[in-house]
């Protein structure tokens, strides 16, 4: 399940909804990861652009992988501005036993960072500044460049 919201995430509400959705599903483990905007380098917050068609197909592949492990993956992400100490990202895995969920959330979040079509900007003095140095080129990038 993939949920996109305008602005910051209501973390307690989302975690509670997901908990209740799976309360009767006989999962022994629920492992959420919550990403919160930290105060650093003088930023006022972060801002995000998302390309939804490819995010949805990327997420669908992870849903299939989760299914193969008898697990469920859920994710929520913000569009637009998210201020300091607010949250922009939640991923969670439900699985029958804890080990699968602990390993799966790690793999999922790593691939999310490297592949999900989301662009991050620092909010600095009222401007949106692309977080170029923290961004990762998607695997297979560069085919249109002269270096090919």
């Amino acid at each position, binding site marked *: 399940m993939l949920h996109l919201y305008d602005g910051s995430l209501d973390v307690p509400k989302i975690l509670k909804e997901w908990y209740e959705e799976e309360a009767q599903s006989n999962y022994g483990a629920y492992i959420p990861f919550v*990403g919160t905007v930290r105060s650093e380098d003088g930023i006022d917050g972060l801002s*995000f*652009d*998302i*390309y939804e*068609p*490819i995010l949805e*197909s990327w997420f669908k592949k992870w849903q299939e992988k989760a299914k193969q492990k008898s697990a469920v993956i859920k994710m929520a*992400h913000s569009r637009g501005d998210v201020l300091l100490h607010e949250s*922009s*990202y939640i991923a969670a895995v439900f699985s029958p036993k804890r080990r699968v969920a602990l390993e799966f959330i790690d793999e999922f*979040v790593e691939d*999310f*960072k*490297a*592949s*999900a*079509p*989301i*662009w*991050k*900007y620092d909010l600095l003095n009222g401007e949106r500044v*692309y*977080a*170029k140095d*923290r*961004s*990762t*080129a*998607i*695997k*297979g*990038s*560069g*085919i*249109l*460049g*002269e*270096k*090919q």
Partner: protein
Amino acid sequence: MVRVEFLGPIQKEALELEITNLNELAAILQKDEELKEWLDNCAVAVNDNLVASLECELKNGDKISLLPPVCGG
């Protein structure tokens, strides 16, 4: 005619081009000064599927997207 869209931080309006493959697109975009800094690190999708090489034929109505480096979360 194919449509070329530039996603995220690339501040460029979409293009409509008469091209039949990605090699032609590469040749056109490499002449664009605005795009020079992006082409070496952009991924390319045709009709929302990422492609790994330029060996891709295009047909009328196709949508090409350029995806610069990402950072979700």
